[in-house]
Every structure is written in structure tokens, then in C-alpha cells.
């Protein structure tokens, strides 16, 4: 449906005397207020009186045209459009699985359009049998499917120096969670025979950036995957089609997309992306290197600055928690700026290194307040405050900001990003 067709449908319905037209829970005061309080007889809507669209209206299904604002967004135009990112609209999503078309993007030299029939994976270096695999070969190998989050280590990086963005999508949207299907890397390494001296594996992309990261052999043999499918279908081009590496719980950059080569070696290869970038600067000028793990983190996704509360009363606070260390054990929520905390309900399933959805019933009395969530993982690690992070690392780390996020609720129902 085109934009004008959608508007026409909306006008027709309003003319027919309908009550509240569609609209998200967080509709703005003005949009909701225009129709609130009316108690007219319910009319039969036009769509109840005529057959709708045919089957195969869209051979590949599309969201309702009324949901056309639920899209990935970039903070702005980049000087090199292929070297940019786009964020997942966490404020509009439910459950723990990110729809594939809304999974965030980060590319370093654009999205290559790769013919899978021509794609090859070369595995060589300290192996007994250097081997070239086709996609057909890889899909024949024993496979597994696992649900895991994927988070860019730069996610929330704008918050190091104070409230960085006025949007959950822009502050936390370099985060998604999908079912990933592929071959355990250990199966492939068994197949080629890894030398006992092997300690690191270089993973290289077939994109124009030739993205390269060094992966510890322990991670490669433990739970790394060679992924060709995401949420039940083949990868999308922007997520690495036809083949990507996936490292559960590690920073997203290491899950190299468009994977063409694995080289087994003794030492890390010291690529640009693990020296000049993706290292975490400290106040003394030193930088931490190989900071792979994504630490425990949570954020309230409703209400967030992308929403506005239209009236006092009952709301369900909802959010996401996740940890590269394993499972989320508990999430606490504060509705008074961090003084009192209540344990939120965790929605099953609570999976290993996957997003976990939490909820807490809440009645807003109209007074200004600050909402926060604080996650605990199964190792006992507690999500830190921003002050604790800055005390430990200063403000120049760029990456790995996992602090408790504060959303201020104003008397006008506007939600803003604050640090307390």
C-alpha cells in the first residue's frame, strides 16, 4: 500500500466513525487525545464489508503499512555511505528475536552482492589439509541452530561522556538477537586437522574492506559457528550472505561477514581492526587490546525517549538484558532513580548469551522520576553504573559501555536520556 493509499484508508475509517485508529501503545498525547473520551456507537469498518487483498499479495511478506515507521535508522549520512551503521528500532519490538529486516548493520566498505555459487571458503595455515569449501560443501556438513544476541562493541559508545542521544534506537540499537544456523567451526577444523601449535585463527571477509580479525583457537573450538542462515532463511546480504563467522558473546566486529578465508597461526595477526580500532583507551594513554567479551547489560525499551506517556496510570515497563558470560539471572528495575529496586519478571526462555525480555508492572502517578534497569548474570556480575565504568576506564574507551541506563520521565510524559 502506498503512503497515500494508507492515508486514504485511515481517513475512510475515521469518517466511518471508528474509535482509536491503530497506533502504538506509546502514541503521542495529541494523536491519542483527538479521539479519547468519545463514546460513539461502534461502526462496521470498511474492511469488514469487502474482501481483502489476495494471497501472495506480497510473495515475501511485508509488515502492515501502518508499521512503516518501524525501520532501521542511521544517526546521519556518513562521508562514505558504505562505511556506516544502522540501528535496530528496539523501542518498537517485542520478545527476544529481532526480525531479520530490522537487524542492525555495520559495514566498513559497503555490502557486497555475492553469488553463492562462486563463493569459496579457504582454510589453511597450520592445518594438515588446506581445503577449499563451496557453499554446497558447507551446507552438507553437520549443522546446529542457536539463539544468540549480536552486539557491536561500539553500542552505547556515545554515552561515555554524558547522555549521548535522545533515542533508544540510537543509544542501544547496535544490538539484535537471532536464531543462527550453520556449522560448528570445530567440525570444520576437525576436517582440516589443526596443528597442536595453533593458537589464533585469522578470519577474513570477501568484502572490499577485507575485514580481518584474529580469533583465539579456544573460542574457535568451543562455540564458534560458520553461519549461513538467520531466523530460518539464508543470511541477508547486509548480514554476510552467503557465509559469516559467529562468535557467541563476543563483540560483533569479530563475527566476520562474507567470510572467505580462515588462516590458522600461532600469533594474533595484528590487523588494523584489532590494533587501531576496537581497542579501549584508558586515561594513562594505554589501550586494552583483545577485549572480546560483551559484558552484562540491560536497558528499558518501554518507556524510552522514542515514546511519550500520554496519561497517568498503568504501564508495563519492558526491557532487554543480555550477557556474553552466559545467562541472565535477575534484572532489577528502579522507578525512583536508583533508590529502591524491584525484581522484574524474566520472560522464558532465558537462553545462554541471548536477549532476555523482562517486564515490571508500573503505575505512573504523573510525577517526574527516573527509570533504570540493572542486570545480574549467572556468574554474579552486576551491571555497573556509568560512574563506576568511568572511574575504571576514563571517557575515551569508545567501546564496551555497558552501564545502567537512566530514562527520565517528565511531567509532560516526555522521556529523556539522563545520567544520575
Amino acid at each position, binding site marked *: 500500500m502506498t503512503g497515500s493509499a494508507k492515508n486514504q484508508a485511515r481517513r475512510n475509517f475515521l469518517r466511518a466513525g471508528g474509535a482509536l485508529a491503530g497506533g502504538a501503545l506509546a502514541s503521542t498525547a495529541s494523536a491519542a487525545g483527538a479521539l479519547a473520551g468519545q463514546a460513539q456507537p461502534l461502526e462496521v469498518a470498511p474492511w469488514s464489508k469487502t474482501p481483502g487483498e489476495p494471497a501472495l499479495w506480497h510473495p515475501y511478506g511485508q509488515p502492515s503499512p501502518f508499521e512503516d515507521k518501524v525501520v532501521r535508522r542511521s544517526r546521519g549520512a556518513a562521508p562514505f555511505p558504505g562505511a556506516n551503521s544502522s540501528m535496530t528500532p528496539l523501542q518498537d519490538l517485542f520478545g527476544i528475536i529481532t526480525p531479520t529486516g530490522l537487524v542492525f548493520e555495520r559495514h566498513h566498505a559497503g555490502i557486497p552482492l555475492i553469488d553463492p555459487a562462486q563463493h569459496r571458503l579457504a582454510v589453511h595455515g597450520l592445518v594438515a589439509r588446506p581445503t577449499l569449501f563451496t557453499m554446497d560443501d558447507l551446507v552438507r556438513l553437520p549443522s546446529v541452530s542457536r539463539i544468540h544476541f549480536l552486539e557491536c562493541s561500539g553500542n552505547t559508545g556515545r554515552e561515555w561522556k554524558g547522555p549521548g542521544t535522545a533515542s533508544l534506537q540510537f543509544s542501544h540499537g547496535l544490538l539484535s538477537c537471532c536464531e543462527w544456523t550453520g556449522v560448528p567451526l570445530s567440525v570444520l577444523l576437525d576436517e582440516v586437522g589443526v596443528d597442536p601449535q595453533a593458537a589464533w585463527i585469522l578470519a577474513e571477509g570477501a568484502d572490499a574492506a577485507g575485514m580481518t580479525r584474529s580469533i583465539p583457537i579456544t573460542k574457535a573450538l568451543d562455540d564458534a559457528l560458520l553461519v549461513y542462515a538467520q531466523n530460518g532463511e539464508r543470511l541477508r546480504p547486509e548480514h554476510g550472505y552467503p557465509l559469516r563467522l559467529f562468535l557467541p558473546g563476543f563483540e560483533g566486529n569479530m563475527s566476520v561477514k562474507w567470510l572467505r578465508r580462515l588462516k590458522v597461526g600461532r600469533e594474533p595477526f595484528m590487523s588494523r581492526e584489532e590494533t587501531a580500532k576496537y581497542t579501549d583507551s584508558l586515561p594513562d594513554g594505554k589501550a586494552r587490546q583483545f577485549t572480546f*567479551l560483551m559484558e552484562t547489560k540491560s536497558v528499558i525499551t518501554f518507556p524510552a525517549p522514542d515514546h511519550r506517556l500520554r496519561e497517568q496510570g498503568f504501564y508495563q515497563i519492558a526491557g532487554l538484558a543480555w550477557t556474553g558470560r552466559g545467562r541472565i539471572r535477575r534484572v532489577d528495575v528502579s522507578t525512583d532513580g536508583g533508590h529502591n529496586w524491584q525484581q522484574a519478571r524474566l520472560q522464558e526462555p532465558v537462553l545462554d548469551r541471548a536477549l532476555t525480555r523482562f517486564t515490571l508492572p508500573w503505575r505512573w502517578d504523573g510525577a517526574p522520576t527516573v527509570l533504570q534497569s540493572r542486570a545480574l548474570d549467572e556468574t554474579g556480575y552486576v551491571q555497573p553504573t556509568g560512574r563506576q565504568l568511568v572511574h575504571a576506564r576514563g571517557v575515551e574507551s569508545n567501546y564496551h559501555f555497558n552501564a545502567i541506563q537512566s530514562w527520565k520521565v517528565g511531567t509532560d510524559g516526555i522521556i529523556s536520556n539522563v545520567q544520575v
Partner: protein
Amino acid sequence: MCRSRRSTLMALLVAMSMVSSMSRAERLGLGQPLPETQLARWNIDVDAQGHGLPPGRGSVAQGQRVYAQTCAACHGDKGQGNPADTLVGGRGSLATAKPLKTIGSFWPYATTVFDFINRAMPYNAPKSLSADEVYAVTAYLLHLNGIVTADTVLDAASLPQVRMPNRDGFIADTRPDTSNVACQQCPAPAAVPSQ
């Protein structure tokens, strides 16, 4: 260890080696053997010791010409950056409030400069420079950063010998480095901040 126990151990070891050879025999057998010759054009990575550096050589003077033609439009005529990354300067800035991370101030290995340019630059035509051109533009960038002299010629032997100023500027991951407490009634309720 008594004899019988030792023979049991021997039997176990023999059995284990049989299992291991069986599992080797049961390889899935997918994929094609990959000889080095077939791999050559993909096997481009250069590590910190210089393994993987190709034959060829390039001087600072040659690099200045390559840089002007292929790099300056995005990185500035002297590596000052905008719109792309700043490549020059920043020495001594890393421990200040305004750290400037460049090749000269931050990159720990000169070999990484070669590797990155060779695989990813220039942005609009990566993998288009010859090995000589990559050596040359690497030499020029190191010279702009005051790391090598104007008469420097770099090749597979000399490039790994270049010692970068921030070579020792990296440390291991020491996280977890915070220890928050999950208090239920926390002290000092925070005031609601102004927007």
C-alpha cells in the same frame, strides 16, 4: 604400578589410538585440497613479524606521488584527515583529554599499515595498488609521522624493523573491572536531574 594395571593401561592406549585413527578415517571428506599456488592471490595477510610481505620496494618520494594521486582527496594533502581518518600527528596526546589516534601516535606495528592499505585502500578501489606502491605510500606515511627519514626505502626486510612509537601502548583485557552491588534499598537516592 603393577604389571596387570600397566597392561590394562597399554590396552587402553591402543584402543584410544584406534578410536583416534578411526575418527580420522571417518573424515567427512568435503571440500577440495587447496595448494599454495591456488591460494596466492587471497593469501595477502601480513602479520606483525612481517610474514606475508610480498616482494617489491618503495621509497618515501615515490609514496608522496602515490599519496597525492590516490589518498589525499580523502585524507588531506598531509594526512590531516577529513573526511577520512587523520593519519598524521597526535604524538603525546594519548594520555590527554583530547587523544588523537593516528598511525604515528597509536598504531603499534608498521606492518599493519601495509596490510591495511594493501587490502582495503583506496576506499573506492581497494586491492588496486601494486606492492611497490603500497611499500611506497607506507614509507611516506611513516615519514610524515617522523618515524622514518626522507631517504627511506621499504621492503619485506626493512618494514618489520620499523619500531612504532606506540609499540608498547597496549595491554591485556583486565575486565571485569567494576564491582557493582545489587542493593535493593540503595543509599542516597538520586535527585531527578534536570534535562
